[in-house]
Structure formats: C-alpha cells, structure tokens
C-alpha cells in the first residue's frame, strides 16, 4: 500500500457517508464557512435515495430532488469529497481534536480527465452483474456506475477486469490509469458526523419465501429499479421469463417486526414505499391487479394516510394477512399461503410476481471506527443517541454526531431533518471550541 501523508490535510468536520443525510449535513456545515471532508465508500454520492424511482407521498421524481443537491455538494468550495474511500479509524487526540485514517481505493480513472463518453464501456469485453440494477442486468468492467452518478466518471472494476487494455486504447483523454494504488490519508478534524445509513434486509434469510430460488420473487429495491426511468428492462417484467406481470403481490414486513430473524422493530418506510410502488405499477400496467399483504399499515406521517386512501381508491387490494410460505407453479407463478388475520383462517392465492418489502437493518460499521472511545449502540444496534429528547444528534462521544438512518429507521424528510439537527449541533460545537 502506498502511504500518502498529506502534510496539511486538516478539516473542521469529517462527514462519514455521502447519502442524502451525510450530503445535507456537509452542505449545512460548508454553507456556514466550515471546511468539510466527505467520505463515501461507493463510486458515487447519493446513497440509496439516488437509486429510487419516485418518493412518497408526493410521487416526486427522486432523481430530480437528489441530483441538484448532490451537484451542489460536489461543487461546493468548502467540501472535499473522497469517493471509493473508507475511514479505517478515528482517534480522539485532544478534547476538541480527532485524527482519522482514511483509505482511498483506486478507481483506475482520473476523475477530472474523464468526459463520461462511455467509449471504454463499449470497448470492454467483460459483462458482470450490475449491482446498481440489483443484479437484474449486466454491466461492463469499465463502466460508469449509473447515468446520474456523481462524479459522472468511469471506473474500473479491477476484480472483474482481465487487463486487456481495450478501454485505454479507445479513451480519448487517456484518463484510465492502471498505475493508481490504494492511498492512506491521516486527517485532523475537530468534529465528526456519522451518516452511515442502513442496510437492507437480505430475504435469503427467510427461505420459505423462496427469494433467490423462485426468479419471480424479487425485492422492493429491485422493483424500485424496474419502475425508475433508468430501469434495467424496457418495462416492468418478470425476471424469470420476461412476462409482463398482471397479478402482483407485496409481502410487507419482510425482515421487520420479526424477532425470529433478529429484527423486532418496524422499519417505518416499507408500508409507504410499497403503497407508492403499487400506485406506480397501476400507472405502468393499468390492467394489473396489485395486492398488498400487511400486518398493520403504518401511515403515520404528513399526507401518508391520504396517500394510503388514494391507493385504495385506485384499486390496490389490501389484505390483512401474514404470509407463511410461498411456492412456485410450473409456469413460474407463486402461491402465497397466508393467515387471513381478519377471518382467522389460512388461505392460498396465486400471483405471477411477488415483491418482498424488505426492511431496514442497522449498519454497525461505525461502531468499529473509534479507538480509545466507545461509540455506543442502542439495543437494536443503531447508533445510540445519548440525549434522545434534548439533543437527538449527540452520541456517546463528545464532538461526534449522528445523522439520518444511522440512528434508526426513518424516511427521507426525517433523514434530512436529522442531518439538519446534526449539522447544527456540530456547528455549535465548533464555535464553542474555537
């Protein structure tokens, strides 16, 4: 590993995570004159939100909200962004001073020189699963992550590259550079905001739902991609055989409110994103029947109940039922065996596509970052908020604040509010310790 010790690398704030919460927090700090280092482990800013089709309850285009904000973050003179980077450790070296070690992985492309012409993509002979389309389609090893990625620049997936050099030969700006190496930075900062987000539940952990075995059982994030303008298919299709589905089921609380898989809490977003997707499906496939199997519909936010009633009015069928098992027919249809909670009997219903509304799990990565101080987690392994009612962004370490879903499941407006709170606390902390 090449150790790059930048002599004067110091910032007022380190923001870990370049999703919507981390980006918002960084922007607030930068707008008030503080220098921010924003660390994102992925190739692009935007987190999970940038991958969504539309948002509830307004049905606004997610990309139309995310991309201007991400662009503002990327262009801000007070924000330095490291993508493909991770913080390996943070140590408190004085009362108001931290030292972080940041590992920056090579992209094998000089971002500033790349024009995103995609000629390297065309030339690359490799095809592997596209993680940004949740593996429903392929991508090249020389690739632009997705069309609204920021930075909009190519990257080389070195683990799947055969080093044929075809990308280099066609690159008009010579921006591909296989000599790049991993770099390590030692960074001095005064405050830290943790915006490490959440992880999606992997439904393979509930084998009775058949995810991964039955090809027409997909996750809600896969359906989100199918509904997005930059979708993997020409329209909504079954991945198992390319059929346009006409009887679609949603299974709510997949990996939420389920102590048997270790996550007893509500993920707070699944009811509403499923209702949102059902409305989008009714628009994309006007002849389709959509059924949502639920335990309780939690339409608690501003405009949520009206949004739920709107879905009912559009013809979405809501069944209060707990799914026991899914089995597959010869034609690739799915039989859902469920307990009808209102009637108290077990029923079966056939659908031709099933969407598992997967829940939000804690991302525990941040807890391992700190040396000499303990970043406490709550009982559900989200970052512990030491003064939940008075100062909800405060963590167990003075000078370290939490933003967004790193502290618990929440929707996009609440994530942005939480980021506002975290940045305000951080600004106050910075001013008090001047």
């Amino acid at each position, binding site marked *: 590993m090449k150790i790059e010790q930048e002599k004067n690398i110091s910032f007022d704030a380190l923001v870990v995570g370049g999703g919507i919460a981390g980006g918002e927090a960084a922007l607030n700090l930068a707008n008030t004159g503080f220098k921010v280092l924003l660390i994102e482990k992925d190739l692009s800013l935007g987190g999970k939100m940038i991958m969504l089709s539309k948002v509830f309850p307004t049905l606004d285009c997610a990309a139309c909200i995310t991309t201007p904000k991400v662009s503002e973050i990327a262009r801000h003179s007070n924000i330095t962004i490291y993508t493909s980077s991770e913080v390996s450790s943070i140590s408190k070296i004085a009362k108001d001073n931290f030292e972080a070690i940041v590992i920056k992985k090579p992209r094998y492309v000089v971002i500033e020189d790349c024009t995103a012409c995609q000629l390297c993509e065309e030339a690359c002979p490799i*095809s592997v699963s596209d993680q940004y389309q949740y593996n429903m*389609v*392929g991508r090249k090893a020389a690739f632009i992550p997705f069309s609204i990625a920021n930075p909009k620049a190519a990257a080389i997936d070195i683990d799947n590259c055969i*080093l044929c*050099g075809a990308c*280099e030969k066609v690159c008009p700006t*010579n921006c591909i550079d296989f000599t790049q190496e991993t770099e390590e930075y030692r960074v001095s900062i005064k405050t830290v905001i943790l915006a490490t987000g959440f992880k999606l539940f992997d439904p393979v952990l509930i084998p009775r739902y058949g995810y991964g075995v039955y090809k027409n059982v997909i996750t809600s994030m896969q359906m989100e991609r199918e509904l997005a303008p930059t979708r993997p298919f020409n329209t909504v299709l079954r991945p198992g055989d*390319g059929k346009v589905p*006409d009887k679609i089921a949603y299974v709510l609380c997949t990996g939420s409110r389920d102590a048997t898989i270790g996550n007893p809490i509500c993920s707070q977003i699944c009811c509403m994103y499923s209702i949102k997707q059902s409305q989008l499906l009714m628009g994309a496939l006007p002849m389709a029947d959509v059924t949502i199997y639920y335990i309780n519909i939690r339409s608690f936010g501003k405009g949520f109940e009206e949004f739920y009633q709107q879905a009912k009015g559009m013809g979405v069928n809501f069944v209060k039922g707990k799914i026991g098992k899914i089995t597959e027919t010869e034609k690739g249809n799915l039989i859902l065996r469920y307990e009808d909670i209102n009637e108290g009997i077990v029923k079966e219903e056939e659908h031709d596509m099933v969407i598992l509304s997967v829940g939000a799990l804690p991302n525990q990565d941040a807890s391992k970052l700190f040396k000499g101080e303990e970043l406490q987690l709550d009982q559900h392994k989200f970052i512990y908020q030491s003064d939940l009612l008075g100062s909800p962004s405060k963590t167990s370490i003075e000078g370290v604040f939490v933003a967004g879903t790193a502290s618990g499941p929440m929707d996009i407006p609440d994530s942005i509010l939480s980021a506002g709170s975290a940045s305000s606390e951080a600004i106050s902390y910075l001013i008090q310790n001047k």
Partner: protein
Amino acid sequence: MEVEKGKTAKYLRDKREVSQDLKDNLKIFNKIKKEILEALKEGDLTIDQLTQKLNIPKHEVVYYLMSLIKYGFVQTGEVDDMDEYFSYKLKK
C-alpha cells in the same frame, strides 16, 4: 518508474495475475452472446423461443438478452396479442 499514459494496463498485468474464473466467465458470455445474436439473425424471437433454441434456463436468457439490449446489440420488438410477452430483434 514512469509508465506511458494510455498503456498502463501492461504495468498492472505484470504485477497481477488474471484468474482463470474471469477468463472462463468471459468465454461463457461471448458464447451466449454469439448464440443469441445468431438466433435473432433469423428473425424476431420471444424469450420462450430463444430458450428453446439456446437450451439455457429462461431467467438466464432474460438476463443476457437485457444485457445485450443495454450494450446496444438488441432492441425490443412488438408485444403479443395478450400484452404478455415481447419479441426481440437485432439492432440495426
């Protein structure tokens, strides 16, 4: 050591071995790509028809066919009378 711009792949090739698995995956992709494109030369086909010609599982046909659409080799044709299955054709 100064490496000439535009010729840096060789630099890493000398330092890093490319696994046999990667080479095998490339062969599989090229084989399926060739078979799909050859089959579509004869005319528009549905996924079901392609599955019968290629003798690989339907979900794999969907995956590879959609990838070839993304890469610009294939395009979507007409949908059938039941609005259920599309046909696919070579991109001209």
